[in-house]
C-alpha cells in the first residue's frame, strides 16, 4: 500500500513538470499551428534563471525568485518569437521547424557557455523534511518540496484555464486559434495576442524548470529529452487543447512510472515513444483534440 501511494506521488510530481512544459507546446500550436521545438530549451532557460536569481543573488526568497524568473523567461520567449518566428509566420513549414530547432541549439550552447556543463541543483530555501503524519500512518515519505510542486503546478494550470476561458484576452486567443486571418479585421492586435501566448507558455515552462531543478537537477541539455516527452504528452492529450496537455502529461508520467515499477526501466522510453506512434496511427487528433475539419 505504502509503495503504491509513493509511486502515485512520483507520477504526480513528474506529471506536473511535464504538464507545465506541454501547455506551452499546446497553446502555441493551438494559436498559430507552430510546433516550437525550442520550447524545451525555454524550460531549461527558466530553470537556470531561477538558479541565477535564487542562488547567485541569494537574498531573494523563493516566492520572489520564482515570479521574477517566470517574468524574465516570458520576456525571453517573446523575444524569440519576435526575432526568429514572426517573419516566418507565413513561410513554408520546413523553414519554421528548422528555425525552432536552431533556436533550441542556440539556447543550449548559450547557457552552457555561460554556466559550464556541470549538473546543478536549486536549493532555494524551500522547506525540507517530510510530512511526518503521512510517514507515520502509511510509511510514505512526502517531502514538502514535492507537496509544493504539485500544488503550485495545479494552481498555475487553473489560473491558465481561467485566463483562456473567462477573460477578454482569452477570448481573443481562442478567436485567433479559430480564424487567424479574420480576427485582425475585428480590431484585435494579432501580434500582441501571439506574443502573449508565448509569454504565458514560457512563464509556465520556467516554473516547471525551477521545480525540476529543485526535485531533480539542471543541465544545459536537459530541455531536449524533457521537451520531447512533454511534446509527446501534448500530442497524446490532443495538441491545441489545454485540458488535453495536462491529461496527457499525467498519463505519460503514469506510463513511465508503471513501466519502471512493474516491467523494466529499459523499456521506459521505448514504451513512451511507442505510445505516441500507436496513438498517431489510430487516433491522430489525441484524446481531447478535435478531428481537423476539411472544407469540401
Amino acid at each position, binding site marked *: 500500500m505504502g*509503495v503504491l501511494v*509513493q509511486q502515485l506521488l*512520483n507520477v504526480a510530481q513528474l506529471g506536473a513538470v511535464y504538464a507545465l512544459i506541454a501547455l506551452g507546446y499546446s497553446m502555441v500550436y493551438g494559436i498559430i499551428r507552430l510546433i516550437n521545438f525550442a520550447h524545451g530549451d525555454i524550460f531549461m532557460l527558466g530553470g537556470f534563471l531561477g538558479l541565477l536569481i535564487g542562488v547567485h543573488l541569494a537574498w531573494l526568497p523563493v516566492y520572489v525568485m520564482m515570479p521574477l524568473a517566470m517574468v524574465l523567461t516570458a520576456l525571453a520567449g517573446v523575444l524569440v518569437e519576435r526575432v526568429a518566428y514572426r517573419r516566418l509566420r507565413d513561410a513554408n513549414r520546413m523553414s519554421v521547424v528548422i528555425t525552432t530547432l536552431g533556436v533550441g541549439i542556440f539556447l543550449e550552447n548559450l547557457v552552457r557557455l555561460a554556466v559550464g556543463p*556541470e549538473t546543478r541543483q536549486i536549493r532555494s530555501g524551500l522547506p525540507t523534511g517530510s510530512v511526518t503524519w503521512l510517514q507515520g500512518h502509511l510509511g510514505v515519505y512526502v517531502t514538502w518540496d514535492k507537496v509544493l510542486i504539485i500544488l503550485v503546478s495545479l494552481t498555475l494550470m487553473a489560473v491558465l484555464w481561467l485566463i483562456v476561458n473567462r477573460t477578454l484576452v482569452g477570448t481573443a486567443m481562442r478567436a485567433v486559434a479559430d480564424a487567424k486571418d479574420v480576427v485582425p479585421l475585428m480590431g484585435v492586435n494579432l501580434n500582441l495576442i501571439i506574443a502573449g501566448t508565448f509569454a504565458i507558455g514560457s512563464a509556465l515552462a520556467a516554473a516547471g524548470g525551477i521545480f525540476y531543478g529543485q526535485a531533480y*537537477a539542471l543541465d544545459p541539455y536537459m530541455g531536449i529529452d524533457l521537451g520531447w516527452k512533454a511534446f509527446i504528452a501534448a500530442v497524446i492529450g490532443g495538441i491545441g487543447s489545454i485540458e488535453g496537455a495536462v491529461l496527457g502529461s499525467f498519463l505519460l508520467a503514469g506510463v513511465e512510472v508503471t513501466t519502471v515499477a512493474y516491467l523494466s*526501466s529499459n523499456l521506459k522510453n521505448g514504451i513512451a515513444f511507442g505510445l505516441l506512434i500507436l496513438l498517431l496511427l489510430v487516433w491522430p487528433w489525441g484524446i481531447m483534440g478535435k478531428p481537423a475539419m476539411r472544407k469540401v
Partner: protein
Amino acid sequence: MKRVFLLLPFLLVLAGCKPKADEVKIGVSAPLTGDISALGQSTRNAITLVQEECAAGIPLGGKQVKVRFLVEDDENKPEATATVFQKLISQDRVVAIIGSQSSKCSNAGAPIAEAARIPQVTPWSTNPNVTRGRKFIFRACFIDPFQGRVVAQFAIGKLKARTAAVVYDVASDYNKGIAEVFRDEFTRLGGKLVGYETYNTKDTDFSAQLTKIKGANPEVLFLPNYFNEVPLQAQQARKLGLTATLLGGDGWDNPELVKLGGAVMDGAYFSNHYSPDADSPVAKEFIAKYTARFKAVPDAAAALTYDSARLVLRAIGAAGKADPRAIRDALAATSGFQGVTGAISFAGSGDPVKGAVIIRIEKGRFVFDSAVNP
C-alpha cells in the same frame, strides 16, 4: 597522378625512418576539453611533473637523451582520439603513447596503436576490453571485475550487510560491467540481492526505481555510476526514506561528487585506485610535489598518469633503445614497479595485478578506509 598519391604514405614512412637520435618523443592523448576536461587538466599536470623530473634527459645507449612529452587533446570523443593517435604515430613518430583516460576513447585508440606496433599505456581505463587480445596495450589501473568484487566483499565482510540493491546506467559498459560482477559476487558470498534496477544515461528522475527498492529496504545500495549522477540518486533515495549505506566505484572520484551531493554523501564508501592520504614514500613524495606545484590534491587519474609515464620511461631505460617493440617487451616484463597507486606487475597480459583502496566520505572529504589486495 593518382599513383603518386598512392605512393605518398610510403614516401612519408621512408622519410620518417631517420629519427633524431638525441630526442625521444612520447605521445599523450588527454581530454583537455569536453565533458571531463577537469580530468584532462590533472593528466596534463601529472605529465608536467614527469617532464620536469627528467629535464636533464635519460641515459640511453651510453649518452644522455632528452625526452619530450607531446600532449594532444582528444576531447573525450572516440573519433577525436583516433585522429590524435594517428597524428602522434605517423606525424610525430612517438615511441609510445600514454592515454587516453576514458575507456571509450582508449578503445578507439588501441586498434591504431596495436596495428602500428606502438606501445600504449592507459592510466584510467578500467573496461576489460581495452587490452583484451592485444599485445601492445597496457594499463596502470585495475579492471572493473576486480573492482566489483572488492565492493561486494567489503559490503559482506566489513559492513556485515545481508541484503543489497543496485541501481545502474544500463547504457554504459563501465556501469553495467561493475553492477553484474557485484551482483554475482554478493550472492556468491551468501548475501541476498533484493533490487536490481536500471536507468539510461542523462536520466535525472530515479524515484520510481528507488521507490521499488524502498519496499525491500536493503542494507546497502550500490551505485556504480559517475560522479555527476550519484548525488541525485543519493538525494532521491534519502527523500524516499531509504537508509541503506551507499557504495560506489572509481567513477565517484571527483570533487563534483560532494559539491553537488553535500551532506547526503557523508558515510558512503567507494573503491578507488589510491587515496590522497596514502602513506607509501613514493605516494607521499608525489602528493607533496603535486600539491605544491598545482595547489590541488591529485585525483586518481593524475596519480595513474604519473605512474603510466614513469612505467614508460623505465621500460625505455630497460630496453636500452628508443625502439617501440623493445619498449613493448620491456613493459610486458615489468615486475614489482613501485608506483604512487601501488605495485604494478604485468603477468602475461596488459592488466596489472594490483590492489584497490576503499574510501569513506566524511564531511565532504575523501578519507582512506582500507586497502584491498587481490
